[in-house]
């Protein structure tokens, strides 16, 4: 009985070798792509971390500026309306302050301010401060942080080159 032609194993070694090579190339490229994606993600995480600490640092500097202003004689001697004006003038001069709102209530000043990192409206800090200062006593000046949170513009998947798969 004659065996069918497909029973021949000639070229089987080459076929096996090609199969092995294809598998090796596939897994090699897969590992390289995965590693590159890991590195890109780590890099983004590192930059986001730097941005957070920078925004926090700018907010701390703003707090220091407010603290400094509240210990000035002009502020301590002023009435509630004048204090509002002085604080508004200070916040106007600060380059990182994107928006602010100041109110006076029962001798306490409520300051709400939103800062933006590097002059852009993509991320920054959202602050709510309460300032208490007795008239004429610099040591009585207290600033209480009611809110100190990081804000970030929502990530737009559609606008991102490569979409969600690019991280």
């Amino acid at each position, binding site marked *: 009985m004659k065996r069918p032609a497909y029973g021949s194993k000639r070229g089987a*070694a080459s076929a096996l070798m090609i199969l092995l090579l294809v598998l090796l190339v596939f897994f090699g490229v897969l590992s390289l792509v995965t590693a590159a994606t890991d590195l890109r993600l780590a890099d983004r995480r590192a930059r986001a971390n730097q941005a957070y600490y920078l925004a926090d640092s700018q907010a701390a500097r703003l707090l*220091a500026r407010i603290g400094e202003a509240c210990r000035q004689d002009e502020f301590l001697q002023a009435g509630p309306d004048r204090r509002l004006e002085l604080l508004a003038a200070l916040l106007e001069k600060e380059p990182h302050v994107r928006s602010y709102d100041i109110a006076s209530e029962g001798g306490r000043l409520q300051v709400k301010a939103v800062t933006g990192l590097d002059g852009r409206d993509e991320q920054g800090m959202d602050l709510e401060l309460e300032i208490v200062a007795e008239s004429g006593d610099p040591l009585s000046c207290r600033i209480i942080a009611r809110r100190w949170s990081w804000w970030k513009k929502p990530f737009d998947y559609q606008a991102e080159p490569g979409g969600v798969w690019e991280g």
Partner: protein
Amino acid sequence: MTTRISRGKNGFTLAELIMAIALLAFFSTMIVQVFAKAADVTDKADRLDQAVLLASDLADQWKYHADESGYPETADKKPAAQSLVYWYDEAFAACSEDEAAYAAAATVEPGDVPGFWQLHIRIETADRQELVYELTAGHYRRLP
């Protein structure tokens, strides 16, 4: 009577085997380099992740436990140098300088507003040849 010996249809020929093994060895060598490169890239990503965690940890420790000089209370204080160096091994565990693979240099300096301090952290290889990560943090301390 004629006896005929012929090569069978089944099995590999010697030439085929030699060729296949040689080509496999050649291409495998090239592909192994791709795997090695992938391992290098993964190590680099892992190192960056560890450095980010370490820098954040140092910054938070400084912010919440800083004394008047601006340094963490637990660290050895060197006010004259205005800088501290922490040493870490390959796994980013604290170690002595001799065993270190990485160095984290933390420098504290007063900001432009009274009461505002800045901390600069640089994480480098121990030989100071390569910068892995750097971070700047700020902190306000109410003046007495």
